[in-house]
């Protein structure tokens, strides 16, 4: 793939759930190696964009291109092949309750890559160190972990197979400020150390300013503005201004 073509490209993507149009002709490019943060209020379709990229949802109209492939047109095997280059960090981590921390992180290594246990354990230890977890957690079940730890395990699981793209769904929501900051550092680390392309969905502006190379704002199913963190911070668009300053007054209705 050419180095200047985007890692992820959405072309006029529309999606409705029932009568509700969640995405309306969304165009979006994420360049290889950059971190793009999508901001917007809850329930405006931020996570829906991630699910389209991960191939969990198919667009009603438009195309979703990842690494030069049209996700919706791929067969299941081909999507799985593409997903090997992709890590997804879910909002509530979505760890498998019935499996241990080790089995969670090593899930794809053991099942898909047929890696022997000794080697998988080595990889898991390395990834846990990378996300700042001690390896005495290996045999615990997810229910025994705190929220912040789960998020880290979720991240370790996402990066276990050395992905080129990481999708983060609200990585800091529901965490205390210190843990949030640690997660932000991790996201920056992943970009620096692994050189991955990241797409982060959040409504935490502090986190957005910290990790983003570019920020795009979605409102009413459309991307209404995009730019560097500084550009977004000083944007004159009344919607963007209202959102980033967290103001009740402005064009966005409270309800």
């Amino acid at each position, binding site marked *: 793939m050419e180095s200047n073509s985007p890692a992820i490209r959405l072309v006029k993507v529309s999606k409705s759930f029932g009568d509700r149009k969640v995405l309306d002709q969304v165009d979006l490019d994420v360049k290889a190696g950059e971190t793009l943060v999508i901001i917007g209020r809850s329930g405006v379709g931020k996570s829906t964009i991630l699910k389209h990229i991960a191939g969990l949802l198919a667009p009603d109209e438009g195309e979703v291109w990842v690494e030069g492939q049209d996700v919706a047109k791929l067969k299941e095997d081909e999507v799985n092949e593409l*997903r090997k280059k992709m890590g997804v960090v*879910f909002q509530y981590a*979505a760890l498998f*309750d019935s499996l241990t921390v080790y089995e969670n992180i090593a899930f794809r290594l053991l099942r898909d890559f047929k890696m022997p246990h000794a080697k998988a354990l080595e990889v898991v230890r390395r990834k846990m160190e990378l996300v700042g977890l001690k390896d005495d957690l290996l045999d615990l079940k997810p229910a025994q972990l705190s929220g912040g730890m789960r998020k880290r395990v979720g991240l370790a699981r996402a990066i276990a197979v050395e992905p080129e793209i990481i999708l983060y769904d609200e990585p800091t929501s529901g965490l205390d400020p210190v843990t949030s900051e640690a997660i932000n550092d991790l996201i920056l680390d992943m970009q620096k150390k692994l050189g991955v392309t990241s797409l982060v969905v959040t409504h935490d502006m502090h986190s957005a300013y910290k990790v983003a190379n570019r920020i795009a704002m979605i409102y009413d199913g459309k991307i209404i503005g995009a730019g560097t963190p500084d550009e977004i911070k000083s944007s004159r668009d009344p919607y963007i201004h209202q959102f980033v300053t967290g103001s009740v007054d402005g064009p966005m209705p409270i309800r």
Partner: protein
Amino acid sequence: MKSIYRSIEDFGRFLVFFINDMGEMVFLTWRINVWMFKKPFDGKLIFEQMVKIGVESIPVALNTALFTGMVLALQSGYTLETKIKGVSQFIGSVVSISMVRELGPVLTAMVIAGRMGSAVAAEIGTMQVTEQIDALYTLAANPVKYLAVPRFLAFTFMLPLLIIFSDFIGWWGGLFICSMKFTSSTIYIESTRSSLETGDIMGGVIKGLFFGAIIAIVACRQGFATTNGAEGVGRATTNAVVFSFMLILISDYFLNAILIALHI
């Protein structure tokens, strides 16, 4: 008057929902059968489910079968002795045939649907509402392959075994009551031997295969279709049990009709 209309409306809505669900279940059955033969072979997962669904259900199956056999012997013995008079030598036939052909398969299936169908629906439903199903997709593991296939195989394989076990326990329960209250155990055994055929047991086992498949598919379908958090998980669990019961009873009649037509 209004409440009558409303209950008719509700019934209609339920019927539409049920028929729609049936369509989805047929589709899931097809998908399970496609994925079953794809690699990798999840031996460990299948074994785990067989233990959960089969081995750990032995106590409840034993309890159900033992007391069903006992009450059958008591009721039929009483009827044969006092109402018809002097034909209590047929208790063995009555108990063994009704246990093996009907009560063993149906009651065991219902107990397993209540115990494990609900558990499977709740487990998969919780995984659905906590995005674990999405996570499976992103980790290149198809949920039908990873979750539904092992459960389907475990239910269809273990339920017939549990039914054979139940038949045997029920027959023993009947023997115990019969020898205590009515005739000697020799007459009971002799009466069983003269009337029970291998085909009767086979019929029960064939029913078990179908009931197992029904429970697995209903439970998995309800689990995968779960929405709306904890409330949805509760609804999925209830639906799994109610639909399983209904389908077990409906299919039991038609399976019986087919088995009789085939002289099994």
